[in-house]
């Protein structure tokens, strides 16, 4: 206290009091921090993280799902289906089990053990990621701002005119540097709110335990085997989406888009400047 000058330069425990209070204050009042507004980041951190978690989970689900399918490459409609019944269709491939008549003299190695373990673990990653993204998207207004088509473009003519623009290979207009155009929004709406929920529900509709607890799931899906068949078709719809999605990114500048979705680069306009 007497040697006041030295006191100021040295750390004392009471220095932490205002420091901590200040931090709490800045937590409570985020307007104090000027950092967010400085650069227009195309994708928020939460979008980037949930995007890549979804990619990893989806790829694991596709690989393990195909491994599971080859143990019985026959598909049915309704509740039940087995080799004593006529299938709706059969994949023209060998099976990994010798009880399935495929017409081939070859049997794939049986990989169902790890495939099923991996499938459900990846499904948990997907579902939990979807929950985080879904709740954040609703609360933050992300869906309202970026996914639902803007007012005035919620009609077929807006969709068709944007499609025509793609076909003419016209450059995107200014607005699209900040967010998605109507075609992208419709696509993401379908993928986020229809295909992913449907593939999760049809997956759950195949679980004897889950269906026991929530029988409505089986009714909605139209039976266990219908759920399995739809699950298979939904997989291919999502794979088709993924191929188009990656192709569009390649066309519009692969590395710039990759940067925007990983370390979080700005919009195209800012980089060109």
């Amino acid at each position, binding site marked *: 206290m007497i040697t006041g000058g030295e006191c100021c330069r040295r750390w004392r425990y009471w220095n932490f009091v205002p420091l901590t209070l200040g931090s709490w204050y800045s937590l409570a009042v985020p307007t104090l921090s000027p950092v967010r507004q400085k650069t227009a980041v195309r994708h928020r951190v939460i979008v980037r993280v949930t995007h890549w978690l979804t990619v990893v989970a989806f790829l694991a689900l596709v690989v393990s799902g195909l491994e599971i399918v080859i143990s019985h490459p026959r598909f049915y409609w309704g509740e*039940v289906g087995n080799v004593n019944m006529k299938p709706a269709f059969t994949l023209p491939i060998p099976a990994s*089990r010798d009880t399935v008549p495929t017409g081939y003299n070859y049997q794939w190695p049986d990989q169902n053990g790890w495939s099923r373990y991996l499938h459900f673990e990846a499904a948990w990653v997907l579902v939990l990621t979807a929950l985080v993204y879904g709740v954040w998207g609703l609360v933050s207004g992300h869906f309202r701002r970026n996914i639902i088509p803007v007012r005035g473009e919620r009609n077929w003519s807006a969709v068709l005119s944007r499609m025509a623009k793609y076909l003419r290979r016209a450059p995107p207009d200014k607005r699209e540097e900040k967010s998605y155009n109507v075609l992208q929004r419709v696509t993401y709406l379908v993928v986020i709110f229809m295909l992913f929920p449907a593939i999760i529900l049809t997956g759950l509709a195949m679980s*004897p335990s889950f269906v026991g607890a929530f029988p409505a799931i089986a009714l909605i899906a139209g039976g266990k085997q219908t759920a399995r068949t739809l699950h298979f078709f939904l997989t291919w719809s999502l794979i088709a989406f993924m191929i188009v999605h990656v192709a569009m990114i390649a066309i519009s500048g692969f590395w710039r888009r990759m940067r925007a979705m990983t370390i979080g680069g700005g919009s195209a306009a800012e980089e060109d400047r």
Partner: protein
Amino acid sequence: MSLISRRRLITTGLATAAGATGLGVAAKLSRKYGLVPPDCKGVYGAGETLTYGAERLFARHAMAREFPRSMICEKPFANEIAPPTDAFKRMQARNFVDWRLTIDGLVEHPMTLSLADLKTMPVHSQITEVSCEEGWSHIAEWIGTPLSNVLNEAGLKPGVRYIYYRAVEPYLWETIDVDEAMHPQTLLTMGMNDGDLPVGFGGPLRLRLPRQLGYKSLKFVIHITAVDSVKNIGKGLGSIDPEAGYSWYAGI
């Protein structure tokens, strides 16, 4: 800028502390309420624990769907079975009158029952679906006595957590948790549709668990043991399934 990094530091610190405490509490609670499966270790342990834990929390007492008689399959599919042992063939030749089911372990009254003894117990019939992990399924009527009848008669001692059941082939064995064992649809099955349970479907005695995939419904059951832990059975993973790379819990 320094304000931001300090804020980050404190937020991260608080989040880490909360996360660590949360995980610790969660681990303790899940052990206490039996939410952790025996195959909880390894790369797939997390997913497996989430699946089994979710079932324990939300579907422990749920009933498997039962179907109208009109949905019974005309030609049910019998999956391949291991070639019968000599002991099995001898019993089959005498119409299984020598078939015995032993109940022992942590029970008040260990006992040995013949099929005739089992048939004096209250009969239960259910029309449920067999779902295979391969993807196929069929519906049949299954007739027998709930496992809970036998376990109640034997009297489970406190501390029983798993029921360990074995087939006539010594290398085929399974365990289930005690709630699954006492579930009203867990059936010591002796009949199918309108007759005795055929050998192809696990006759003369199969433990049917309609809430799990077919591979948990062991065929040719001869021995049931009440245990407090599965650590000392086989590799300690709960059944032959994880030893062969399959999940112990098969409700999904």
